[in-house]
């Protein structure tokens, strides 16, 4: 049980730490931004509270110190300096380490702990000295009593609040510690004994608090129960009303009547009261700050990822079964059944899209790591680099995002290490001293494109060429285009870094990047201009398990061709396809090279008047694939062909049709590449 809670805390804390890191990096760009400081503070506060609650005392203690520093920042008594940010970021890393072993006291961690704590305390002391002096001057001007303000706090916990281990009484106690406080419990909701559930909380509170603290300290008390209660905090007077006898009488009245008084009525009462009692001009109570949790409806929930996987599996099964129903209905011909089948098809398609939407997450989630990497590494390499990201709301399957982080880190490291030059060199080249790395994400059909570009030195094709010759990868007289030379960097064992640094060149190179991206059915491409910079383009599928395809037939076998690559379908006379020597057919007045699938698959030609040519996009060309018949659109649930067929690259998987027949899913890019290569080699042999 406890372990469960701890696990949950670790999960949550990891998120808080991430959020903290993100906020700090943003704060660095914008050091006076109030909401950001609040965000930093909130994350720390949650960490501290959670840590203490679940026995992670070191985290709690450590965060407490950090929080003290940021409290000063929040109150404008300390500035966000570079020193503070560096220290905080180091602390964030340290918190991560603490989270992983809070109980074990490994020496290095403890030393780090002490060191960081000391530094933070130094900063804080420097800050507090200032604070003290500010404080004193205020106290000279005003009496404590007049400084107190009266707040009206309506606290209505949800019935289930105690389930989370919260005791509302403690919250009231905490309020009382802030100043002079009268708390009136409203008990009229307590049911009769028969209906009474001891696990539920039936009491609301009306709290009147006269305090010197500001409204933040009050809402902080409720920080952990924000979502479990209705909370309204209103400033009702700039004086301490709890010293006013008439006001206390009114409170007694509330207590007896057991009616929440409501802010409007209270305002009226206080206005009359102040007018009556002091006959002073009332400043107006317009500076009401209300924090209403009611408006904050829950916008997200946490779901275990294996539950999602299960959901995806079920949806996939449903889609397969639905295909069967549609097929049956069509054969059966009953109009009513057809209508039902159509409806089921529509619904399951929507359900599929929805379910897939759930597992898509914006790439934003991995950016923090990249920002941090660029920040730290550029400092280490003494380079000035800004990292920018565009289209961060672009969404991808979570498994894709997970497998993408490592390759992207590697690409970024390369850009930082080999791409961006030192400031002085950049100036000599007439470029701004500050380098720029841009991560751009956008949708392109059923794909997502990620571009990582830097404005660094670019890749020198001559060096690559020389290196490839030296390593025996190409022959010295090989005539290669620029693109072909650039593609050499993806060959295993190729690393151009002249001196292997700590940063990149750890023996893994771009070939690993390419392979990892290929594992998630992605493709990677490189473009580079000498002294202008390098761009890596990664093309990824949106999702891995269901594709929209076109069902076609070649002889007895069904194939699915992904709709995303299909441009157009033409019916072409049989003779035009078979009586050609260069595999080119004229379609819409345009010459299109094509592959006759029967021929490619070594099957005898089809004896018919017309055949279908499906024109697909291959790289930047249009290529035709001749098939026997086109059956129609089909949603294919991808199933692996298994290890035994791993080498058959032209088939990326299989899917089971409604009648139980298997259809093969064709990877047209790989297929065309393979057909084209074969044609080339046979020509060479001639």
């Amino acid at each position, binding site marked *: 049980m406890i372990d469960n809670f701890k696990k949950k805390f670790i999960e949550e804390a990891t998120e808080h730490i991430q959020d903290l890191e993100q906020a700090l990096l943003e704060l660095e760009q914008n050091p006076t931004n109030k909401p950001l400081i609040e965000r930093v503070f909130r994350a720390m506060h949650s960490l501290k509270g959670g840590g203490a609650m679940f026995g992670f005392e070191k985290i709690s203690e450590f965060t407490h110190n950090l929080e003290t520093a940021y409290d000063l920042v929040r109150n404008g008594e300390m500035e966000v300096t570079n020193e503070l940010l560096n220290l905080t970021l180091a602390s964030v890393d340290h918190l991560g380490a603490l989270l992983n072993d809070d109980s074990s006291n490994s020496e290095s961690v403890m030393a780090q702990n002490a060191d960081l704590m000391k530094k933070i305390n130094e900063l804080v002391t420097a800050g507090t000295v200032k604070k003290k002096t500010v404080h004193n001057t205020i106290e000279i001007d005003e009496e404590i009593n007049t400084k107190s303000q009266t707040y009206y706090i309506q606290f209505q916990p949800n019935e289930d609040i105690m389930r989370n281990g919260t005791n509302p009484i403690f919250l009231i106690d905490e309020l009382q510690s802030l100043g002079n406080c009268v708390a009136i419990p409203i008990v009229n909701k307590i049911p009769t004994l028969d209906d009474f559930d001891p696990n539920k909380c039936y009491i609301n509170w009306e709290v009147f608090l006269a305090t010197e603290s500001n409204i933040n300290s009050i809402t902080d008390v409720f920080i952990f129960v924000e979502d479990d209660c209705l909370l309204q905090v209103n400033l009702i007077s700039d004086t301490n009303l709890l010293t006013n006898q008439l006001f206390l009488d009114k409170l007694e009245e509330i207590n007896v009547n057991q009616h929440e008084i409501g802010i409007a009525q209270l305002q009226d009462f206080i206005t009359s009261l102040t007018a009556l009692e002091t006959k002073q001009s009332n400043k107006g109570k317009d500076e009401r700050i209300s924090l209403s949790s009611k408006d904050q409806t829950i916008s997200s929930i946490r779901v275990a990822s294996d539950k999602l996987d299960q959901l995806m599996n079920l949806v996939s*099964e449903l889609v*397969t079964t639905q295909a069967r129903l549609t097929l049956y209905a069509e054969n059966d011909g009953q109009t009513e059944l057809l209508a039902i089948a159509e409806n089921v098809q529509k619904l399951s398609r929507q359900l599929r899209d929805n379910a897939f939407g759930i597992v898509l997450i914006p790439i934003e989630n991995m950016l923090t790591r990249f920002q941090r990497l660029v920040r730290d590494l550029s400092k280490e390499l003494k380079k000035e680099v800004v990292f920018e990201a565009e289209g961060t709301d672009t969404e991808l399957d979570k498994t894709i995002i997970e497998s993408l982080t490592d390759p992207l880190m590697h690409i970024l490291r390369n850009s930082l290490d080999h791409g961006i030059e030192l400031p002085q060199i950049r100036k000599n080249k007439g470029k701004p001293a500050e380098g720029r790395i841009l991560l751009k994400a956008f949708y392109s059909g059923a794909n997502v494109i990620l571009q990582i570009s830097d404005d660094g030195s670019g890749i020198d094709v001559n060096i690559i060429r020389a290196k490839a010759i030296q390593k025996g990868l190409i022959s010295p007289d090989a005539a290669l285009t620029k693109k072909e030379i650039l593609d050499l960097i993806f060959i295993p064992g190729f690393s151009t870094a002249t001196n292997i640094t700590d940063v990149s060149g750890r023996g893994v190179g771009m070939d690993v990047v390419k392979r990892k991206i290929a594992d998630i059915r992605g493709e990677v491409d490189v473009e580079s201009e000498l002294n202008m910079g390098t761009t890596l383009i990664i093309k990824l599928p949106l999702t891995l398990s269901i594709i929209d395809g076109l069902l076609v037939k070649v002889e*007895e*076998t*069904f194939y699915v061709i992904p709709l995303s690559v299909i441009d157009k379908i033409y019916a072409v006379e049989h003779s035009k396809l078979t009586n050609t020597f260069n595999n080119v057919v004229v379609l819409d007045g345009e010459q299109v090279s094509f592959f006759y699938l029967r021929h*490619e*698959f*070594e099957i005898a030609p089809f004896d018919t008047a017309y055949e279908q040519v499906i024109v697909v996009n291959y790289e930047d060309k249009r290529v035709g694939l001749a098939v026997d018949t086109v059956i129609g659109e089909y949603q294919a649930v991808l*199933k*692996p*062909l*298994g*290890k*035994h*067929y*791993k*080498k*058959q690259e*032209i*088939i990326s998987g*299989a899917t*089971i049709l409604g009648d*139980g*027949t*298997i*259809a*093969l899913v064709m990877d047209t890019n790989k297929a065309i590449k*393979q057909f084209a290569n074969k044609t080339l080699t046979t020509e060479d042999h001639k």
Partner: protein
Amino acid sequence: MKEATKINSYLTFKLRDEIFGASVAKVLNILEMIKITKVPKAPVYMKGVINLRGSVLPLIDTRIKFDMGETVYTDNTCILVLDIEIAGETVHVGALVDSVQEVIEIDDADIQPSPSIGSKYKSEFIDGMVKIDNDFIMLLNMDLIFSTSEITLLRESSGDTQVEVETRV
């Protein structure tokens, strides 16, 4: 010492006129012939795929592996659904055989080592031989046979040049 839990039951099947045995622990299922979907550009012994209760099962022509020519389908042709271990992973694969015979109990003591000379097949694929009545039954190492991408299991010295360098699938 042999492991106490070792299963000594073998399923025997025929390829042409020869009888082979596979440990029953490896055989999940025996299917009658059903429709096979051919996969283009695959090696000749990879017959295609079949739909096994909603999942896709690759099918291997066992006769080609034993250099007996392609399987000729008869009423007795069967598919053995096997549980094969490839590099620590369990993979299901279907094996085409001419006919399934019976399940027999074999005492470990009766199993003779596969003869190092005189056998057509590479010895690593054969776990042993056993003589029942007048028939010799070859007990096969199914894991190895169905995970290698060698086209046939013939000894290289037997003069067959089809054998590729051994690479695991």
